[in-house]
């Protein structure tokens, strides 16, 4: 961690898809133990930001610092092994693996910087009791809600210190969104650092400590969730609400 207590520091990254210039110089930080929300309409670069951090799509310029270490040149599995976990957009559960195999695939003990009780299969199943009944089902036999729970659960099994959440409420029924919120609160209590990318403004405002808004690949607004909630001009202009 650097002297400002940042878990993750994104420093002026520029990311392309082929010739398309998606992230045009993004800088933001996730202080240790906080939930940082990134909002913005579709196609503004939110998922690309997540993909850049986890190493799926490398930035052409700029640096990403995790706990004081430059992770920009590392491969995804190395980045994950340092303590970052991803709950991806669309869940991306492995269909030919059982629920148990999905959970244990990335299972690892917390690193030297880990704090609190470590996650293991029992604790994760206590948090998501629905998965307990499904352990021997393959991933393609799950409902959308169960898939989202599994995506969360398997990310926790890696005992991360930073969790990347890419639109976790997308396509979930209101009841499930509320259940997800409860889980997010529990993780927040455990001081897990979270970068939450969302379209659901209400959800993001409710659970975050700080919000950024992305527009056309740039950060155009940064404030506390309360300040954003009161700023109707910014909400109308960049989020269309």
């Amino acid at each position, binding site marked *: 961690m650097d002297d400002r207590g940042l878990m993750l520091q994104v420093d002026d990254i520029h990311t392309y898809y082929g010739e398309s210039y998606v992230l045009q110089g993004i800088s933001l930080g996730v202080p240790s133990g906080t939930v940082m929300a990134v909002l913005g309409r579709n196609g503004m670069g939110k998922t690309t930001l997540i993909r850049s951090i*986890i*190493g*799926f799509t490398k930035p052409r310029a700029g640096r990403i610092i995790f706990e004081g270490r430059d992770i920009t040149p590392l*491969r*995804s*599995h190395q980045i*994950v*092994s340092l303590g970052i976990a*991803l709950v*991806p957009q669309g869940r*991306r559960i*492995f*269909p*030919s*693996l059982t629920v148990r*195999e999905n959970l*244990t*695939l*990335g299972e*690892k003990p917390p690193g030297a910087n880990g704090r609190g009780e470590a996650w293991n299969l029992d604790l994760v199943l206590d948090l998501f009791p629905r998965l307990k009944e499904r352990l021997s089902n393959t991933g393609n036999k799950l409902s959308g809600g169960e898939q989202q729970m599994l995506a969360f659960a*398997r990310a926790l099994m*890696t005992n991360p210190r930073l969790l990347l959440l890419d639109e976790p409420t997308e396509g979930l029924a209101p009841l499930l969104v509320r259940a997800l919120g409860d889980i997010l609160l529990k993780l927040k209590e455990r001081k897990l650092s979270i970068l939450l990318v969302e379209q659901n403004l209400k959800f993001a405002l409710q659970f975050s400590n700080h919000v950024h808004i992305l527009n056309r690949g740039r950060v155009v607004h940064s404030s506390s969730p309360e300040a954003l909630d009161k700023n109707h001009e910014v909400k109308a202009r960049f989020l269309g609400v």
Partner: protein
Amino acid sequence: MAVIFARRVLCLFRGTAMNYWLTQLFNGFSYGALIFLLAMGLSLIFGVMQVINVTHGTYFLVGTYIGLSILTWTGNFYLAILGGGLVIALVGIFIERFFLRRLRGNDLGQVLITFGFVLLLQDAILLIWGPDPKLMGEPKSISFTAHIGSFTFPSYRLFVIVVAAAVAAGLWLFENKTKFGSAVRAAVDDVEMASGMGVNVPLVFTVVFGLGSFLAGLGGVLSGPWLGLQYGLDLEILPYAFVVVIVGGMGSLKGAILASLLVGLVDNFGKGFFPDLAYFTLFLPMAVILAVRPQGLFGRTL
């Protein structure tokens, strides 16, 4: 043509026809077992890495020659099987690590470089073992003719069936009961997300390529006493492997087993009934299955 065929079929139902059918069935089945050993590695590599490894048939043949040399030096057939597999595994790992890895995502480049290695390895065969066809003896312990009633069959082919069954069982255990196996399946499902869960995908690729190559080399040595050793045999046998991969579905163990047996039987009976149309009877089932189920019997939709 039709008359000749009808007469031939009629003959089969007279006299010793029952034994003929049993023998043909057994031959087709055992040939299928040999093809399985050849094709399973190709299917694994195809399914996991999306690499169209044209060199696979040549791995098989070079494996046979290496097995022959080991057999000549040591006199131990089982050592030859293992050694042929291991040497080809190392060759495969070397080629994957230093050539194919650089061309990931470049399908045409990969096909061209694997074809380049066909030419290189074929030249290596000419250089080391020479152009003349060679014979390889069966080990004495399994070289006899077995009898069940009036039905006789060469026990070496039974041995090949046993090895293929053991390989299939071992692969199933590896894929379904080991942590590395679930990482391999995760990489087949979604290679990017597998790396996002901490799976070391380049390592998985290297191991899978090595394993596929090992199977080719092992199958090659086993084919020695049966098919003989001959320059050019690699490209003759490669189409069988591709038919199995396409019919069975890429990367599917179940598909490779069934498709290999199907190809072995169809090829055997096809050559018996329509000797002039050998390739036609081989490729017809493939064309039919491709038209009805493009992903193969057990493949997933691409």
